[in-house]
């Protein structure tokens, strides 16, 4: 069963994908599987331990199940202040 989400890109991920966001449909069930799909789609090896994941603008666990219509962002190390 396929899931369709909006994925937002920031910082080095935006530079690498050359996109600020896109809709992705696939058989991924959680954020971890979506992360692997992105690495595959963009032929890039990312160190997942450096990232957090936000689902619908809240920090969540990578094992969180994704639902149709979710907005997902993989958050590189932040550097505010």
């Amino acid at each position, binding site marked *: 069963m396929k899931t369709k989400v909006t994925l*937002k890109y*920031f*910082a*080095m991920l*935006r*530079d*690498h994908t050359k996109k600020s966001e896109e809709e992705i449909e696939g058989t991924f069930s959680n954020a971890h599987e979506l992360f692997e799909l992105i690495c595959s789609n*963009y*032929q*890039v*090896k*990312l*160190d997942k331990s*450096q*990232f957090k994941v*936000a689902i619908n*603008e*809240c*920090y969540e666990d990578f094992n969180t199940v994704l639902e149709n219509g979710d907005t997902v*962002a993989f*958050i*590189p*190390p*932040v*550097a*505010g*202040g």
Partner: protein
Amino acid sequence: MFSKSFEITTENINSLPKTDWFDFPTAGAAVTFEGRVRNHNDGRNVSFLEYQTYEEMSVKVGNTILKNALDRFDITAVKCIHRYGKLKIGDIAVWVVAVSSHRRESFEACQYVIDTIKDELPMWKKEHYTEGTYEWVACHRCLEHSHKKHNE
């Protein structure tokens, strides 16, 4: 009355009027923090910064941080403004004020807010160096091997 306010803005914070925020009749202390753009980092000469943010999430996270500050410390009010976009040397990137009856709580709350913002706010900083290169601060370990590098 307890209050909090978190904003992100592309406006120049240096020129924003801020002193009206200290005006509480119960307040004997107001501690402010200004984070400013400096001209060097890790031995490199910085020419300017670009901050990028996840706007909707930053507002949520920022307000949660301020709510937690109100819950944790005996303060009357707390406010934070974080700028994004292109900033030049000397510009204020982040401004925090905590107001309380006595100074200790304001100092502690102000420190808590800026420390937590640095850890949690979805805000990224691209440093541009005088030699013409740039780098996303703290992101250098994220990208282990790009496809391009495999082919090099």
